[in-house]
């Protein structure tokens, strides 16, 4: 049986920078075959220099990536994606500005052969608070934020520091403390958005200098209580954004742990896998010691 195809949903209201972020990821795919599903091909959906070939419903992109428009039939488009040869490494759904992302994840969860890799919501630092008060769209914007596992607060270059701090404080209130990553021009470390980047060897290190993020690999050699460990990794105070890796359970079985924001999941893994958890977190908060300590407590 092949491993399920991971699916990430990128959401956010119109103008929050979803398309820019998608182009940024395509530009930095680094060998990972991404399949992007968009509601519709906008006039400038994909940067032209990235396009290799174009068909009605599918655009082939340099490096083995593809982009498809799904219109009204997301389920059908996903099923088509899984049939591509070679199969993509990761599917990314750019949801429409009015879509409720958790509903999309719900649909994905019904399909065999796919697994959800979290919801990343973009928010425009300049306008998000105003959008959230919009007469018509306000509640939709708030529902999108509430669905987020990770929020990318975009366009921070357009606001002053006081506005930024206030926006982050407000977002914290709305979302009860979800992880917020700052960004301008949709530029964010790809590992934040897609778990597949986290463990991609060729990408290795974060190559965005300005990033306030850090990556590390922690190896827990002793058996641990897997669920308890996963739960603790998702704790707000740890400064962890994403984690993926393998540990040995108290009963001696290999387990896969996946964490995105506060969401965590564990599953059985083949015995042959080597222990080690790749962690992505906030520089200065994330610490090797803390994680190892959690590992020890959980053992």
């Amino acid at each position: 049986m092949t491993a399920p195809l991971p699916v990430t949903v990128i959401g956010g209201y119109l103008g929050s920078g979803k398309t820019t972020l998608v182009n940024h990821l395509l530009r930095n795919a680094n060998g990972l075959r991404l399949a992007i599903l968009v509601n519709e091909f906008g006039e400038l959906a994909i940067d032209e220099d990235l396009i290799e070939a174009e068909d009605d419903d599918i655009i082939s992109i340099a490096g083995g990536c593809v982009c498809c428009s799904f219109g009204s039939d997301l389920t059908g488009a996903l099923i088509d994606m899984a049939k591509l040869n070679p199969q993509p490494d990761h599917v990314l759904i750019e949801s429409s500005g009015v879509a409720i992302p958790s509903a999309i994840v719900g649909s994905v969860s019904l399909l065999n052969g796919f697994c959800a890799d979290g919801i990343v919501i973009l928010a425009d630092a300049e306008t998000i608070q105003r959008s959230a008060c919009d007469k018509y769209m306000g509640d939709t914007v708030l529902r999108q934020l509430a669905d987020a596992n990770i929020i990318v607060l975009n366009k921070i270059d357009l606001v002053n520091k006081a506005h930024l701090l206030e926006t982050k404080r407000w977002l914290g209130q709305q979302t009860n403390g979800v992880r917020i990553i700052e960004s301008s021009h949709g530029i964010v470390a790809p590992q934040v958005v897609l778990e597949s980047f986290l463990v991609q060897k060729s990408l290795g290190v974060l190559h965005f200098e300005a990033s306030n993020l850090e990556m590390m690999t922690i190896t827990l050699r002793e058996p641990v209580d897997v669920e308890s460990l996963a739960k603790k990794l998702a704790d707000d105070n740890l400064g962890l954004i994403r984690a993926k890796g393998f540990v040995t359970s108290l009963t001696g079985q290999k387990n896969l742990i996946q964490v995105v924001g506060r969401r965590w999941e564990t599953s059985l893994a083949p015995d042959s896998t080597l222990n080690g958890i790749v962690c992505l977190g906030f520089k200065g908060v994330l610490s090797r010691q803390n994680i190892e300590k959690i590992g020890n407590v959980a053992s």
Partner: protein
Amino acid sequence: MVDTTIYSARKIITMNPARPTVSHVAVRDGKILAAGDLSELETWGDYKLDETFADKVLMPGLVEGHAHTMEGTLWRYVYCGYFDRGDPNGKVWDGLQTIEAILERLKEAEVQIDDPDAPLSGWSLDPIYMDNTRVTRADLDSVSATRPIGVLHASGHILNVNTKALELGGLMKTGINHPGIPLGADGYPTGELFGPETMTPIGVHVGFNRSLTDSDEQGLRDFAKLCVRTGVTTITDLAARLDDEGIEAMLRVTGEDDYPARVVPLQLFMGATPKEIVDKVVELKARATDRLRLGRIKAVADGSIQGFSARMRWPGYHNGAPNGLWYTAPEQLAELYRLALGAGIQVHTHTNGDEATEMVLETLAPALRDVPSPNHRFTLQHCQLADAAQFRKMKELNMCVNLFANHHFYWGDEHYRLTVGPERALRMNACRTALETGVPMAIHSDAPVTPLGPFFTAWSAVNRLTASGRTQGEHEKIGVEAALYAITLGAAYTLHLDDEIGSIEVGKKADFAVLEDDPTEIGNDNLKDVCVWGTVQNGRIFAASKL
């Protein structure tokens, strides 16, 4: 020599106020040459007198402004509805009032299918009339445990399936956590699937594939038969994806010599940018034929009231359900409206909740300031919950409205009790307010959601009875004459076709509804029972008995 036929009739209701009823109508080249008495018509020269309709009543061919050709396709499946309903071949299927009766009919159909793996599909189920008794997979398993079975609800938004279908779709398992998939005490799905995202993966295994809304060729022909049986000569398909293959098929089928209806398909605004859609429809408009009127757009602002996905203004849903969903953002609609107005393309917009209606009104107003278009006739479709102030705004913006009169009968009790509560339920589908405000109005069936039949639709608007027999919204009742106008000229106006159809007067298409009864004499209570003999479309005679 010119070929003129003069038809005599018991009565011809023209909808032309200058001479509301006449005894004869002359037809030449598929068009109305004259309507009057025989001595007037004879002045046009040689003619052939045709007395086929001597004992019939003629009306302008009826116009259904909001239906879906999918109705034609669905009749190949087993009818499971609560109310009696006629199929394209004229058979009236008894309504089924119990789950047992539904299962019995499914069993009868099941034994007739030879291929043991072929799916069995049913449609038009509606448990709200059966005390909301839910159909389970076990119920459908009693029909067959080995063949996949799916029954679509009348709303089109819920699908019931059996265990085999769940297995084929990979959902026959525990641990499913999805709001659209209720689980039984055993942790397995009960077999009810809510919403398109849960229906699609299983639907393909039970005969409801992804492109169900796109009617196939046989479906289009069957749809047209229903038109003849209900007196309809012009009908909309609201809306279609209109891919190349679909357009070719529609052009081919409607172009057949004996195709009896004029079809007006609207391009759905979804899955493409406003510019792409407008550009496409400008091209489609150039390909339009007399019987396939391409060149209009339908946008969807929100969902449905009974599905709690319509967008409501304060105080929201009566039962406290959270507000519904937007299907299109105001910014996208604004761009669509501007581009379409600029290109002279008409847009119909689906709104159900009053907040969605408000959003459309507020979005169209600035677009019209940018692109003044006095005759745009942009139409609000359904628009069920609009209040008087919103109708006044529609008037100010020169908008039209097409109200869902049938809904009142089928779901009015539900709206009163559950979705919007008594006060707002009384104002739903406010036909009288629309007319008194001066908003051009049509009324519709939304077939297959409710059965095609403009006389039933007119009856609904005149009587405002609900399924339980209550009159709901006395104040919003309209007279028979206004209702007959709505199903002819009223609907034609919303399609920019009132210069060609909708009344019997010189120069218009020879499109008639041929009736056994006189709708102006039969009485308000019986309007729905007007017996239709058939139609004349573009001068061609179609008898329902000979389809």
